[in-house]
């Protein structure tokens, strides 16, 4: 009898111990659980998609570890400090982008990486964090919705790095950077009339921009409209990924048993097209489970952002959360044939690159902003 009465209180103490630990680390429990589940899913799928390579899984584990460290460090960083270093981070990022572009120009080819000897590093990844940080910091002091002058400054903050990335050329990342800036402006309360005006202007720019696209970029758009027009060329990716997803059916062909993925009919199977591997091997159920996890993470992240009490925190936090959702939709839409093929990885699931680290770092920032919500503000 005594024991039975003791047990609940012990449990309560354990729970509160976890809560105390999370609080000390300034992390959010539910968000952490969601991200952890997605990372576990990633490891399982990557083992299959890489052709049963434990090496790939190990390297992903290292990246997740690095990302977790960055997350904890940034969660501990004070909001004011983040706001003050934003211009410097942005300036450093722009400088690195210029260097990368210069190397690419000399080497006459696409250049996205900076080889630091031990690590290869993608400066455009920094900009995914630096652009919303600087824009949020800039708008923090100003009344919202932003006036025309503020809008112009923010546009500059967005378009300078986006342009530098676009000429690498890496259209996908450039669009994502521009997209995160646009989301920030939307969350800043940009007037509906201006939104409509910008959409019209963007449509005009798209028509004009067509002239400046590289041939392979145009081809991607054309192929998206009619993939069967070029089944062995640019249409191949889309056709094969739809075959993979469609043939997976409701329950999938089973782990490590997807013929499209395992027999290499699916290109970029462990990177950009890993969504199709999940669709083929785990079926509609597997994809819906993944989408549910993403939806949970995004909802929780947006909720955390709404709970912060200052402009900087709210804008930065919500932009990071919504950009994450944008990545998911662009990748899933591209692989399932809803959107043209742009080189955007599936966040946290695709193998390789610096994106796992930056994404987890972004969530670290968000958790830090949330944990200090009552300490900062007017």
């Amino acid at each position, binding site marked *: 009898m005594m024991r039975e009465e003791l047990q609940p209180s012990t449990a309560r103490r354990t729970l509160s111990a976890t809560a105390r630990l999370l609080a000390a680390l300034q992390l959010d429990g539910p968000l952490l659980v969601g991200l952890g589940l997605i990372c576990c899913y990633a490891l399982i799928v990557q083992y299959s998609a890489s052709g049963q390579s434990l090496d790939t899984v190990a390297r992903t584990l290292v990246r997740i570890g690095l990302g977790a460290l960055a997350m904890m460090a940034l969660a501990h960083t004070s909001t004011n400090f983040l706001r003050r270093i934003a211009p410097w981070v942005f300036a450093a990022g722009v400088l690195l982008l210029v260097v990368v572009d210069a190397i690419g120009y000399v080497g006459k080819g696409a250049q996205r990486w900076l080889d630091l000897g031990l690590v290869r590093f993608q400066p455009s990844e920094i900009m995914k964090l630096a652009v919303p940080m600087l824009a949020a910091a800039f708008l923090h002091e100003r009344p919202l919705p932003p006036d025309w002058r503020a809008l112009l400054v923010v546009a500059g903050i967005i378009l300078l790095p986006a342009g530098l990335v676009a000429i690498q050329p890496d259209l996908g990342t450039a669009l994502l950077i521009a997209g995160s800036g646009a989301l920030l402006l939307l969350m800043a309360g940009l007037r509906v009339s201006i939104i409509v005006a910008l959409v019209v202007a963007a449509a005009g720019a798209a028509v004009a921009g067509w002239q400046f696209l590289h041939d392979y970029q145009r081809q991607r758009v054309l192929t998206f409209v009619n993939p069967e027009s070029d089944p062995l060329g640019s249409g191949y990716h889309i056709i094969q990924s739809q075959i993979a997803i469609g043939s997976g059916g409701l329950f999938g062909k089973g782990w490590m048993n997807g013929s499209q993925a395992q027999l290499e*009919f699916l290109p970029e199977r462990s990177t950009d097209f890993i969504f199709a591997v999940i669709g083929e091997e785990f079926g509609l159920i597997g994809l819906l489970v993944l989408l549910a996890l993403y939806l949970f993470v995004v909802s929780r992240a947006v909720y955390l952002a709404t709970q912060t009490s200052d402009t900087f925190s709210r804008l930065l936090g919500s932009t990071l959360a919504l950009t994450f959702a944008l990545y998911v939709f662009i990748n899933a839409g591209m692989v399932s044939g809803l959107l043209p093929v742009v080189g955007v990885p599936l966040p946290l699931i695709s193998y390789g690159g610096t994106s796992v680290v930056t994404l987890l770092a972004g969530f670290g920032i968000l958790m830090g902003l949330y944990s200090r919500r009552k300490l900062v503000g007017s």
Partner: protein
Amino acid sequence: MAATVRIKDHWNEQRVFTARAFVAMATIGALAVLLALRLLWLQVVRHDYYVELSQGNRVRLDPIPASRGLILDRNGTVLVDNEPAYQLELIREQTPDLGDTLRRLAALGLLPAEEIDDARRTVLSRRSFDSVPIRLRLSDEEIGRFAVHRYEFPGVDLRTRQTRHYPFGNLGVHALGYVAAISEQDLERIDRASYAGTSLIGKLGVESAYEPQLHGHNGYREILVNAQGRSVERQGAYQPELRSAAPQAGADLVLAIDLPAQQAAEEALSGRRGAVVALDPANGDVIALVSHPGFDPALFGRGFTRAEYAQLTNDIDKPLLNRALRGAYPSGSTIKPIIALAGLHLRMVDPLRREFCNGAFHLPRSAHLYREGKGGRHGHVDLEDAIARSCDVYFYSLAATLGVNHISGFMGRFGFGAETGIDIGGEKPGILPSPEWKKKAFRRPQDQVWFPGETVNFGVGQGYLTVTPVQLAHATAMLAMRGRSFRPRLVTGVRDAVSGAVKALPAAPLPGIDDVDSTNWDRVIRGMEGATRYGTAAAIGKGAAYTLAGKTGTAQVFSIGQQERYNDAANAARQRNERLRDHSWFVAFAPVESPRIAICVLVENGGFGASGAAPIARRVMDAYLRAAQPAVAP
């Protein structure tokens, strides 16, 4: 310039932000639903379609060729079967140094040195894991030599392939046909899928006409392949189940050909150019079908060198020409029995009236002389004598009496001027002249007129008339059967390759001649009998163990001038040039009472029918009637 100074309204900002957050979450929810619907479409609605595409990606069908049906003679002797041929194949990715490997193979004499470059190009044009044939048809000795050195050639191996084998070599090649590489034209008429894995197809003769029966149905084996097309064992972590289907062998064909008769005909014709067609008058079965010279059918299956092909096509003896079906020659006197029958049937000749032959005939009011072909004179001859002794003057006169339309019409009922419809096809119809035919055949009006003199020549089988050996054999069979007619056929039965059950094909009766009195048939046949007893072919009737009826024929290659005599010195000189000599014909059937064989022999430039062609017919009939056995038991 007092601008309105805006200050931060925290409460309002918070409110707008929360509203925007709601809109954002609602948008995300809508996009998630859109995505889920798209996935539902792909994975549930269109699932079957994509499963098929995915299956098509990962599985390649590896065809298993069906074994081609055998060809047997009427006694069950195998005339055509299959044998394995060995070829050398090379897999590039398993070969350490391609150039060096090919050079060492050439050094061993397994690859002609001049083909090294070709072989190298062929190998490089294929995928690195493909097994590429670099040398076809190795001899036993070469197989042995390679076996000893095999360990020195990683990636090179012997492969077997079924090819056609002809145990009797050239025998009956124009009847049997041959197989050769599938051509573009062939691809248009065959079902490509059922020929996947088969490289040879029947050409000419039985091999071509009965291609569907002989070919059978190829089987297949599913092979798992990756995106590069390489065959792989496993799909990720699993070994999938793959289907296969066994090939169904082609059916064997039972021919009417009697091997001893066919061999006798081939041997008798050896060293000459000509054709033999022997039919069973009672059903149209082809007992023997020879066109000489022939060629080696195996050459086509193996593939020619350019020189070999040029030699065959440029040969002055035209070995590729099927003289039996496609050789159209003037008939000479072989048609006299039919002209006689026409006269009897139309009651335009009195068979018992003896006409006087003085060696030449001329039409009323014409000075043109139509000479007795062999020269000389026959004196008084009646109809039977005229057939037996082949009196030209009698038939000049008869033809003039009958007129061209009656002759042409009656001969048409014996199948002249049209294909006999023999089951292997490829016949020429020859020419059955008539005034209408002349109008169509000539363009100049003065050439379109039919002259009475042409009718006179027609009566002895000279002039425009051309016939093929198979037509004459068929007409002779009709004479033997007193008008009954059957479509000539080589294939009499189809034997299932597995059960061995023979399905006999019924004989195909043709509309024959049933309105001619039997006394008229009797008279004509007696005349033909006379030919082999006391007439032109008396020599070959001697010592025969059976009764026979026949008719000789001599077709002029060059017409003889009016003032010349056949035995003149100028002709003698022409006779010395072998290729300008007359063509020699003989048609016969035996036994007369119940005919079992009707035969037509043609010897190009064989001289007189009696000396050139008739002895050959006798040898074939002897071989068939003595060797006569019941047809192959089911």
